[in-house]
């Protein structure tokens, strides 16, 4: 080793010595799991990075500690009678973190950048699929570069008008910073996307500003004095820490390096719950787990067989005794996320498990299978521990109740994603993370026209979804969506299993971190006592 290199190493070590300790007083230390994908508000697609960005940027609406929609940059909004047009009025005197005025056009610019094919953002589908904003699809698909076709306009500095092709009561869920952050045009023109990670250049409009970014290590944010509600932001400094390994994260929490963890190791949940119940927070998310059947491969084209397999799964035992990750068993697809939605469950949800199993055996025999002729199938799943545990548990139940010989085919995640579009599976350990906490994000995904992979032909379902899609008010729409979900569940094209929860450890002195199905936890609503 050369002497100069040695000197360099010594200098580097000394430089580390000057860094401030992580657990200084008054700093909120939050875990974000593994490294974030991007801090570019128009590109990032990660929920964890979404927390960082929700602190740094504010959309037209914001989400309170419980995840409910509250006014954000917009102080109020109005819906047109047909439900297709929303008019947002910005607060007076809004400013960017550098003091520049924040105007309505900045929100239009943000959306245009998301849709611009050159941005290569995966989030455009929020605006042409989840809700249908005029012109959004044409811009995203590069059919036109004429930005005037976009149905989002700024008639004056404080008004943003959003025009949609069809009414969508859930559009407000998509007007937060995750989907619709504003863009500081001058800064972006000068620095490009590199400006979003450069503390010297980044300009944001949220409660905090990014002041330090070290990849794979942390993001540091300081309170933004130019934020309109800065007087009510209590925590001055927020630090998001990357910790890939959950066991290490737990130890960092125990050593006081973290105030809020990203996750809890599955094996520790029971012990932690018993030892410090007040610090364990486990609550439902919009992450739905269901097992899809391959409709183009016999015998899964037979509804009796699909129903038998679905009923033979004891969901309570599976999640409570085998997986033990705190997931909530479910018999529905779109229900369980928004309490206002009174959707259906599969018909046998009201039965006891022994009754379901008896029926399952009957249906299995009816489909032509039995002890002499057992069904052999393979379950395609990822190799993540929680997923293989669940798949093995289900395989065991199928063996016990029906005599099915199920083989668990564990695949690395990307291979698993690609496997779905082949026919090399009978049962697919599927999941879907909703775009917002409501039934429609799930139910639209199952439209035969939307997701080709399921090979499900059901014009009645598309018709029922079309009927729901024209209803502007939420209550009426939910009734129509429930009718559609009934059609979906009656075909048993998948077995709903459980809703995966968020799992966090939260220090007793942290107040204002509450259960939020959509997963929004802005630091501006958190206080340290």
């Amino acid at each position, binding site marked *: 080793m050369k002497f100069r290199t040695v000197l360099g190493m010594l200098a580097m070590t000394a430089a580390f010595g000057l860094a401030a300790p992580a657990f200084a007083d008054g700093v909120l230390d939050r875990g974000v799991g593994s490294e974030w994908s991007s801090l570019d508000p128009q590109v990032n697609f990660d929920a964890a990075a979404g927390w960082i960005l929700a602190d740094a940027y504010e959309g037209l609406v914001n989400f309170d500690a419980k995840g409910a929609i509250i006014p954000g940059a917009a102080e109020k909004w109005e819906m047109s009678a047909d439900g297709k047009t929303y008019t947002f009025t910005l607060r007076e005197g809004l400013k960017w973190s550098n003091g520049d005025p924040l105007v309505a056009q900045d929100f239009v610019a943000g959306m245009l950048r998301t849709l611009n094919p050159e941005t290569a953002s995966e989030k455009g589908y929020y605006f042409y699929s989840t809700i249908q904003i005029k012109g959004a699809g044409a811009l995203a698909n590069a059919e036109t570069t004429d930005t005037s076709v976009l149905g989002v306009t700024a008639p004056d500095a404080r008004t943003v008008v959003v025009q949609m092709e069809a009414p969508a009561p859930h559009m407000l869920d998509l007007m937060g910073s995750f989907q619709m952050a504003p863009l500081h045009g001058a800064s972006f023109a000068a620095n490009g996307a590199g400006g979003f990670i450069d503390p010297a250049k980044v300009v944001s409009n949220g409660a905090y500003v990014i002041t330090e970014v070290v990849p794979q290590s942390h993001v540091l944010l300081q309170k933004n004095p130019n934020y309109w509600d800065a007087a009510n932001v209590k925590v001055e400094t927020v630090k998001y820490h990357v910790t890939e390994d959950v066991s290490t994260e737990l*130890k*960092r929490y125990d050593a006081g390096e973290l105030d809020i963890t990203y996750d809890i190791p599955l094996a520790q949940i029971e012990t932690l719950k018993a030892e410090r119940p007040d610090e364990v927070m486990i609550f439902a998310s919009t992450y739905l787990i269901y097992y899809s059947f391959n409709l183009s491969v016999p015998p899964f084209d037979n509804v009796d067989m699909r129903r038998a397999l679905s009923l033979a799964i004891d969901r309570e035992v599976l999640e409570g005794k085998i997986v033990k990750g705190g997931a909530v068993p479910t018999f529905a697809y779109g229900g369980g996320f928004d309490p206002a939605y009174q959707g259906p469950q599969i018909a046998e949800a009201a039965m006891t498990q022994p009754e379901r199993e008896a029926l399952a055996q009957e249906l299995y025999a009816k489909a032509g299978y039995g002890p002499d002729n057992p069904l052999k199938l393979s379950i395609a799943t990822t190799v993540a521990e929680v997923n293989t545990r669940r798949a093995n548990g289900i395989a065991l139940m199928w063996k016990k109740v029906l005599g099915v010989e199920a083989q668990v085919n564990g695949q690395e995640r990307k291979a698993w994603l690609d496997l779905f579009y082949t026919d090399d599976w009978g049962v697919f350990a599927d999941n879907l993370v909703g775009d917002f906490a409501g039934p429609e994000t799930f139910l639209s995904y199952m439209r035969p026209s939307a997701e080709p992979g399921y090979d499900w032909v059901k014009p009645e379902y598309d018709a029922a979804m079309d009927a729901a899609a024209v209803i502007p008010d939420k209550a009426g729409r939910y009734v129509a969506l429930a009718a559609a979900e009934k059609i979906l569940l009656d075909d048993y094209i998948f077995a709903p299993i459980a809703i995966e929860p968020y799992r966090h450890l939260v220090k007793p002195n942290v107040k204002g971190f509450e259960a939020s199905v959509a997963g929004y936890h802005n630091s501006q609503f958190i206080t340290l006592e």
Partner: protein
Amino acid sequence: MFPFVAKRIWSGFLTLAALATLTFFIMRLAPGGPFSRNRKISPEVQANIEAAFHLDEPVWQQFGRYIWGIVRGDLGPSTRFRDYSVNDLIASGLPYSLTIGFWAILVASLVGIGLGLAGALRRNGWTDYAAGTVGVIGIAVPIFIIGPLAQLYFSVHLGWFPVGGMNDGWRSLVLPVLVLALPNIAYISRLTRSSLIETMRENHVRTSRAKGIGPWLVMVRHVMTGAMLPVVAYLGPAAAALITGSILIETVFALPGIGRFFVDAALNRDYPLVMGITLVYGGFLILFNLLTDLLRGWMDPRVRHEG
């Protein structure tokens, strides 16, 4: 000397080229791509995203583009960490990996050689047994057991050092360096001990002693130079492995080195990042092997004349 070095550099270059080619094509054999998702993105948008990263081009064309990039010193954009180029990520992670690796190899060499020496000089004494015990533990117990145990005791229980991260100055370095050094201390001390014992029995040593040269001088001039050869041969590749970052250490101690980028990149099919880190690894390995050979040549004329 110069032809030897030139020849080694040329063969190192060829090795890197072969490594780049193999990795490039093997990566693309793995199922899935950087933008596979279970979300319904319109096919046009998916195509646009892939086009932005040139993934729509034929593979040979992507390869040509990649090689042209390397020639200009550009390792391409990262598809997993969208805010950074591969050059940025390596520049950000490598200093951490280098620092930890450097201290680990330094500690491992000093302590390892010291323990080996103590063991060889006082064979079957208590230092020998102590060194042997450390050796067995260091080799037998894997990092992912020792690491968490060290964290539990020294960080959670005693609070001396942070559990993870790089936020606490030199104290952040202590545990990862020690845990990374431990298995190498074990290897080096065992290697030093047996090599010393063997050398001390050799004829030239016996002759030196018979000529009446003092025991220390014999040790330094005649025993150590010979006995250190296998240790140096081990240290070269070991240093390359340590300095380029240990994936396990970086995961257990939540360190922002390049080892973790490597795993994350492979799982997410971030082709340019996997390629970039592979080349850095390869480059360091070749460099350290070369340095080792030069050092051995300097210490042992036989090695010098082979080349």
